[in-house]
């Protein structure tokens, strides 16, 4: 057992710090730090910088462009990026569809898509959920019917994050309705410019457009855009969901949020001093910090087990559950720390053409938007209730 950094680790940490100090664009950092949705342009600009450095896809195998970092190095990068609010690359490409492609795709697919993901030429989105299928993903109804060299896709996806920016969507579609729900699903990669695709914005609790509905009307998708075998899509989807859980704890981001709470509470007056001296506030912050520390070391312990060749069952669901609960408590505390200035709220588009910034102290711009948006954190990617079902079954055998 060992928690220490060796000399190489310390040098690496220095390299990461220098890279971030010199390369992270200020505007990108600021939006991320406030918890606002990224702009497409800013996110892509930053991802291209990361890719130039070779750090776009640390978890990929080296042959496809990964970094071959030790878990200590990954920890260092995650935490250094978190502490300066450097955004992670959008997950849909590099963390979700990328691994599916290099694991189950054919050579052509690998050659075509992986470099474009690394260099952020394609913005990917995820076509999983449908109006009738939330937690019960396998009940999806979007149909793909073979017609010569194409599938003809009809149906609707929903809750599609950033579909309005997307160049590509990876979709679960039903290719066989005569078998059990999970057995008739295929995994397609679809160009968003294909005729018949319509994206309709959903305005969220935060009154911003990050979610969308995506409609498919006789959308023709070449069969070479199918991953793996027809009707085996569920296997690839499950692989992806498992993969999605790594990093879902978002420890580094939450650490930065703790620092933000301290910054704000240290500036907000309260009774005779500052909010940061209020015993109730101090206690809530300490509880969060300790819970976050417990999560951090649990994540590290699991990573250590994996890198020592041990297998995990559904333990990573714990990271999702605890991670999202902490994120929500943090945005709650951020909003609370604003006092009355938690109430003013207008979406970003309301400021278009106005020569004004949001009212109140500068740090009041962000927390409520993120607080509202992050209500989804315990819902998406398998709600926390579903995660507990999974642990109950897989780990506890109940």
């Amino acid at each position, binding site marked *: 057992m060992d928690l220490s950094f060796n000399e190489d680790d310390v040098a690496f940490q220095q390299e990461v710090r220098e890279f971030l100090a010199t390369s992270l664009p200020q505007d990108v950092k600021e939006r991320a730090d406030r918890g606002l949705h990224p702009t497409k342009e800013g996110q892509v600009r930053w991802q291209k910088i990361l890719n130039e450095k070779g750090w776009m896809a640390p978890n990929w195998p080296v042959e496809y462009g990964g970094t071959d970092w030790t878990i200590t190095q990954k920890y260092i990068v995650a935490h250094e990026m978190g502490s300066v609010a450097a955004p992670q690359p959008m997950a849909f490409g590099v963390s979700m569809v990328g691994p599916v492609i290099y694991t189950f795709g054919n050579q052509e697919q690998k050659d075509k898509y992986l470099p474009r993901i690394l260099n952020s030429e394609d913005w990917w989105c995820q076509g999983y*959920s449908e109006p*009738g*299928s*939330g*937690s*019960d993903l396998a*009940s999806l109804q979007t149909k793909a019917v073979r017609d010569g060299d194409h599938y003809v896709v009809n149906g609707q996806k*929903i*809750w599609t994050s950033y579909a309005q920016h997307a160049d590509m969507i990876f979709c679960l579609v039903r290719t066989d309705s005569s078998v059990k729900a999970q057995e008739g699903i295929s995994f397609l990669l679809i160009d968003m410019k294909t005729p018949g695709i319509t994206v309709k914005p*959903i*305005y*969220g*609790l935060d*009154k911003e457009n990050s*979610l969308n509905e995506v409609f498919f009307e006789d959308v023709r998708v070449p069969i070479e855009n199918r991953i793996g075998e027809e009707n085996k899509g569920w296997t690839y989807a499950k692989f992806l969901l498992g993969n999605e859980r790594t990093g879902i704890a978002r420890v580094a981001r939450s650490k930065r949020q703790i620092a933000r709470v301290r910054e704000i509470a240290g500036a*907000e*007056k*309260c*009774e*005779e001093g500052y*909010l940061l001296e209020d015993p*109730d*506030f101090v206690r809530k912050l300490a509880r969060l910090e300790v819970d976050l520390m417990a999560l951090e070391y649990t994540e590290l312990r699991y990573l250590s087990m994996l890198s020592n060749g041990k297998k995990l069952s559904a333990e990573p669901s714990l990271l999702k559950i605890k991670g999202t609960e902490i994120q*929500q408590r943090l945005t*709650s505390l951020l*909003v*609370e720390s604003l*006092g*009355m*200035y*938690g*109430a*003013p*709220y*207008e979406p970003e588009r*309301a400021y278009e053409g106005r020569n*004004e910034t*949001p*009212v*109140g*102290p500068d740090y009041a711009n962000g927390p*409520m938007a993120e607080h*509202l948006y992050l*209500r*989804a954190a*315990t*819902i*998406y990617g398998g*709600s926390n*209730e579903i995660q*507990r079902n999974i642990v109950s079954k897989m780990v506890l055998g109940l």
Partner: protein
Amino acid sequence: MDFELSDEQNLLKDSVERFVKDNYSPEARAKLTETELGFSRDHWKTMAELGWLGLPFSEEVGGFGGTAVETMIMMESMGRGLVLEPFLSTVILGGGLVAEGGSAEQIENIIPEVIEGNLMLAFAYAEKQSRFNLNDVETSASKSGDGYILNGHKAVVYHGTTADKIIVSARTSGASKDKDGISLFIVDNNAQGLSRRDYATIDGQRAADIVFENVAVDASALLGQEGAALPVIEKIVERTIGALCAEAVGAMETANDITNEYMKQRKQFGIPIGKFQVLQHRMVDMFMEAEQSKSMSDMVAMKLELEDAAERSKAVSAVKAQVGQAAKFVGEQSIQLHGGMGMTDEYSIGHYFKRLTTIEMLFGNTDYHFKRFAALSA
């Protein structure tokens, strides 16, 4: 001991519920929130016609002499529809301050106009540094001839956007947190030197930051005795908290109804999600929180009439703390149980969540009132 409504009170309740049912469908409300004004002047007229705007005022000035119980009834029903008209700001808070602290002349000039629906009020008390502390007042009012000169910045004045007159707390003497030396002034919203930054709030309402830069007012603008406003402010803010908690009760009960209904309709894995025991128990906990809040809201409506200020204040903080906890839990879990649907601005449940979120914070959040309760219990 009796928690039942009288026949008259039941009539009032029915009347407000009918108004809400007729005018506050989620779609209708959504439209109103998108208007410049943020509410409907027609509704306001209706409220005046129905006599609601005169509810808490004495019969001498044309009111109905209602107690906090009638206010509770009205606010609870309004909470069901998340009513947007500035009843709380104008009638309970602004009107309450005038009726409680004003001279006979001020009452005569203002209250009948409020009752008629011709005059709207807002109370500017919070400041950047004050958090929830009512006696943390840095806005100054310095004597100048017969009148006063106001200077300062008031934060997040609910309905300060549309009020005709702003009631401002300002310091006429003492240091910034002294209990003595705070005075109230009635200021025209278009007074020289007054500038406003208007904005929307997350609960779909309107508020403003108001800056007073050498705003000159007559001696007649002084509301009540110079330097002795704090007890008046505290009393009226406590009545407002009672009203706000009643609104929260209505909002929670409705959020629960909506969620409960959704759980019966929405199917996953082939069965209604309301069949999953974990979600059932969550819904039971939400129901229990609303029940407990309702009991406390009823209790405080009765206790607000108490002469014993310490006992009354303790009850008020207890209710705000209970309702604050409940509002947070019910609001957040309503979203959770709705899943993705709860995340959309279009669907109604999110608006209950947001209003409950602000109610938790307004006039002191849960922690603030637990602490105040404990201090009053020590």
